């Protein structure tokens, strides 16, 4: 996904988010739990009140909580930020106008030359 995003946005700050995603993939449950303690106090508190939970469920909740936090706080704001600033439609319109004007200029120049040659 990140090579795709890099192609789209080509921004160097994407690297830190990519590193974060790699960490999410490779880190173990205890490391993820530490991340939750530092970044999601509500879920950390909830987990403290459910210590007898089935381990598989516990793991799934931690993984999803970390993923959601990273998506919500890093990747999505980054994508929104870089999509909103480009304003490509307006630029396209301006360039199309310039193109039409340049074509008109050539037409005018060619007709002027033809008239010139006839004289």
């Amino acid at each position, binding site marked *: 996904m990140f090579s*795709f995003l890099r192609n789209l946005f080509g921004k160097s700050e994407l690297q830190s988010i990519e590193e974060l995603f790699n960490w999410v993939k490779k880190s173990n449950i205890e490391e993820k739990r530490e991340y939750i303690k530092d970044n999601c106090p509500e879920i950390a508190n909830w987990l403290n009140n*459910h210590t007898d*939970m089935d381990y598989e*469920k516990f793991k799934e909740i931690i993984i999803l909580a970390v993923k*959601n936090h990273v998506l919500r706080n890093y990747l999505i704001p980054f994508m929104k930020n870089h999509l909103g600033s480009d304003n*490509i439609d307006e630029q396209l319109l301006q360039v199309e106008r310039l*193109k039409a004007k340049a074509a008109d200029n050539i037409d005018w120049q060619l007709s002027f*030359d033809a008239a*010139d040659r006839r004289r």
Partner: protein
Amino acid sequence: MPTKEEMFSAWEKELPKKPSCQSLTEEKIRLKKIKLKKIKKRNALRIEQEYLTKQKEREQEREQEREEREQEREQEREEERKQILIKKTIKEENQMLHNLKVENNQLNSVVNSLKQAGENNYQKQQMLNASIATVKSLNDIDWQLSFDAADRRR
């Protein structure tokens, strides 16, 4: 368990037979009667006492049984409360998992929309670059034509 009256009548049957009146003086008979009365009274009291003791024992047994049954019921209620709490906790855990899954789906959907928008922008950017190059070429041609025309006029 025999009743008080039954026990009393059983005891009366076991009493010695009355002695013959001819062999005893009146006084002896009277004393004997008093003694017999006392014995009867003592025995009645003893029987009464035994009856009361047994009744008390029965009541204690019944009380103990009641307490045991109450303890059993309390244990059952405690177990029921535990089960309800476990069910409630599991429900909460499942709800949390469900909420996180829903949130994850929503976030992924937002990412996909943004990716799509980014892809569209990328294509527009390519078009923009191509258009800029076209404008530049057209300007070059225009410049070349006007230069040629000026050259011819000289």
